[in-house]
């Protein structure tokens, strides 16, 4: 290729020749002469291009155009949620100094990122009511996997109890993280009326092998787990760590897990200022108590506040790195290296913008509209919403009589509306049910339109 490429300043023939002359070689391939002949790739990679920027842009956007434009955001939640991302958040995460930097291994020249991550850790602590949070993990599901392993290391026990109504995707990740090290996952039953954890079944399943009891609040199916005191007592009486998760945008109206004796909190930070991006990148939240024994077992990076060596001013640096793979190798608490730092930056900006009042207002509008939707949908004939009698936050179950979820879903799609996630395969015992979600992105008009579409679909 003779034409210089804009991404490669030294692709100019004259420069290459000058550099090769310095090295005393005549051809670039001389630098690859140590690759055995039989391993050399003959010919060209079968990949189209190179294309000019205008062409690249056109090709990518033409491809993206094939994604549908829906009349309003999908009524989907369950682990990723449609929430508004303020313009200031996007403005900050686009800054090249943040976007194109790597892990702040050299603290003197990366104080900016270090301070933002320290602020992120601090904001998460305020949200969940604990004293320590790490710099991020990949997503909620992998954070749960890491938490189960941490609880097992701390307690030297090998059973983790989870709610029966956990998201099957999350459960699959939990199993992948725990099975190789011999941790067993047991499911705790739920009350068929309220959906809440069956506390009797919990007592039966928690014993001297239980490393942790994991609850979700709000649950996968949207209701708020109320028996938190009893759950905490049951877990702690058996000497286990209890690990509720706190969902990112959970409102100020809801109690922080740290306030009901959670030892480790995991959750999803995507709704805190991160776009859905078809499910990634996400932001695994991970927090725990200010207990040195626990902190030493934490996975992931930690940013600490310290001073400069001359003691003259405050500064930030990565700390307790002896837990991490680049120092401790196979004895590390986790293998994580690259994390989701930029998503943590987004969440720090988001929480700073919202403040306590914004969070409260957000919770109010989200829950109010979700309840409005539940009420309107529940009034329709041949529909139940929600299936459980507990307080729901933004997600709720909807079940149909006379028509299948798949049929209703298709009808909604034909009017460019996207209904909830079908639960038929995940929890067949719930019947023809789907998991709907309403956020501040759904106006009353959107909800009314959904209700009409559902009504029509059920009349067919």
């Amino acid at each position, binding site marked *: 290729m003779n034409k210089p490429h804009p991404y490669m300043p030294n*692709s100019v023939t004259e420069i290459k020749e000058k550099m090769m002359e310095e090295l005393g070689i005549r051809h670039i391939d001389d630098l690859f002469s140590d690759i055995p002949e039989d391993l050399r790739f003959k010919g060209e990679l079968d990949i189209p291009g190179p294309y000019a920027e205008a062409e690249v842009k056109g090709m990518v956007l033409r491809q993206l155009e094939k994604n549908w434009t829906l009349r309003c955001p999908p009524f989907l939640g369950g682990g990723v949620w449609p929430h508004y991302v303020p313009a200031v958040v996007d403005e900050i995460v686009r800054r090249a100094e943040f976007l194109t930097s790597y892990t702040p291994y050299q603290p003197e020249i990366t104080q900016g990122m270090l301070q933002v991550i320290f602020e992120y850790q601090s904001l998460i602590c305020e949200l969940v009511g604990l004293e320590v949070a790490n710099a991020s993990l990949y997503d909620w599901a992998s954070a749960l996997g890491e938490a189960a392993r941490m609880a097992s290391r701390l307690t030297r026990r090998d059973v983790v109890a989870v709610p029966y109504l956990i998201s099957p995707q999350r459960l699959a990740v939990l199993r992948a993280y725990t099975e190789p090290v011999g941790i067993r996952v047991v499911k705790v039953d739920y009350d068929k009326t309220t959906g809440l954890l069956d506390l009797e079944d919990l007592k039966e399943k928690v014993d001297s092998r239980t490393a942790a009891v994991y609850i979700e609040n709000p649950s996968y199916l949207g209701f708020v787990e109320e028996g938190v005191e009893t759950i905490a007592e049951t877990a702690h009486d058996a000497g286990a760590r209890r690990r509720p998760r706190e969902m990112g945008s959970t409102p100020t109206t809801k109690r922080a897990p740290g306030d009901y004796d959670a030892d480790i909190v995991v959750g999803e930070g995507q709704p805190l200022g991160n776009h859905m991006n078809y499910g990634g990148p996400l932001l695994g939240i991970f927090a725990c108590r200010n207990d040195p024994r626990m902190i030493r077992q934490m996975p992931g990076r930690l940013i600490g506040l310290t001073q400069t060596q001359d003691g003259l001013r405050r500064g930030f640096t990565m700390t307790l790195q002896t837990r991490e793979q680049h120092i401790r190798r196979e004895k590390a608490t986790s293998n994580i290296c690259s994390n989701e730092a930029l998503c943590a930056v987004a969440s720090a900006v988001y929480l700073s913008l919202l403040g306590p009042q914004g969070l409260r207002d957000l919770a109010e509008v989200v829950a109010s509209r979700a309840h409005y939707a539940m009420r309107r949908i529940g009034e329709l004939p041949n529909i139940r919403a929600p299936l459980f009698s507990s307080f729901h936050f933004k997600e709720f179950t909807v079940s149909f009589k006379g028509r299948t979820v798949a049929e209703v879903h298709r009808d909604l799609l034909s009017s460019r509306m996207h209904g909830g996630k079908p639960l038929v395969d995940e929890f067949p015992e719930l019947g023809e049910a789907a998991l709907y979600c309403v956020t501040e992105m759904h106006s009353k008009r959107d909800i009314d339109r959904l209700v009409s579409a559902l009504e029509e679909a059920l009349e067919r």
Partner: protein
Amino acid sequence: MRRFRQADWEEPLIFELGREERVGFTVPSVEPEVSDAVGDIEELVPTNMLRSEPPMLPEVSEIEVLRHFIHLSQMNYGVNSGVFYPLGSCTMKYNPVINEVVAAHPKITEIHPDQDEATVQGVLGILYQLKRWFLEVTGMDDASLQPAAGAHGEFLGNLLIRAYHADRGEIDKRREIIVPDSAHGTNPASAMMAGFKTVEIPSGEDGCVDIEALRSVVGEHTAGLMLTNPNTLGIFERNISEIAEIVHGAGGLMYYDGANLNAIMGKCRPGDMGFDIVHVNLHKTFSTPHGGGGPGSGPVGVKSFLADYLPVPTVEEEDGVYRLDYDRPKTIGRIHGYHGNVSPILKAYAYTLALGGSGLKEASEIAVLNSNYIAHKLKDVRGLSLPYAPGVPRKHEAVLSASGMAEETGVRALDVAKGLLDRGIHAPTIYFPLIVPEALMIEPTETEPLEALDAFIEAVKEISDLAYSNPKEVLDAPRNTAVGRLDEARAAHPKTICLSWRAYCALAGRG
């Protein structure tokens, strides 16, 4: 040499800004009809689940938030904003702006991962196509895009090794993963995550895997071997076919750590070297930004005999229609809640189009040319040396040792790094690989102009001169960055450790 001064705003913590009742953002109001219908939502919340006090979040206006974080960004250093970021093993290449532009399109940012496949054919097509190109570059047969980072891919790879041996009824005896002592720390840590024990083997005098050492540890307990090629010294493991033969002969599998793929695109392929499993870091080789630590993306490719174990779902194509395939009865399950880090995958897709097959190959060629140029110019600088096989060309990176300088002047690799920061250049990776004392691991990538390489070389020479004439000057560096050296001991000491604003307030309260 240009004079560098990093911005320093002495920026307060966000918690120290603002005033009561200030807001940085408003959310839509509840419509009157909605509140009429549902009433006061708070009254519906179970009383024991109400928060007694609001969280202690800052109360700041929009412009205060914006300025705060812009100030902090100015106290940071990125590839696109700095002048040179030769952080070895991290492939800090230019992150093309067009990739960010297309990735910000609402038709990708506002898509929910549980949407009906019919509504997301565009993004599925991108995932599928990137997978095909990834297979072409690596010489593998099938792949999963779920891993969110390189180490996540390594974890998946080890789960696949586990599943393969379990399927053959051999997992109880195959407990060991072999890693060279020059391996990335993630390799042994990932093997540990998957329940394996690691066996470390020493490197030979040529910096490559010691074949005899390898022979002495393989056996019926071998589950597999993890290797990067070129290795972390930047040297190509020319005995790779023999290594693969030995490991395969013992019944183990070969795992390729793709952190160093930027050296060999279009020149040779892991799949042709005998590797069974490969991960690639899209945030390295395929130009997606590192984001201050993440997000990354670490797709994993396998040979066809391992395809049954891949996580679900995978993206497949039939007659021009893309779908998610969950039909893998032997799957290891999942390692990510959804489909992996889709946004970086989209950026890698745009990058691949911008380069094409020939451009990827040229990227590797120039990356290798650049690193050899630096190694050539630096190896004779006073106090530095190029350990291991100095006559063998380096690939994408070169590891120099400052041990001579350290012994003769007391100026160590760490100090050289700080001296570079003072000159506006990001430091190389230091003290890695572990087999090189006082290591300076330099990876220039293909996206740096000759002028940047020369400026870096000049800066290193200048620091070397200073080390031998006025070492204190280097030991006191950096002075031109936002802050000077930090008190790491204080950061980690049980009495002074401070990991959050809460802890800071508690420490301050204690006085």
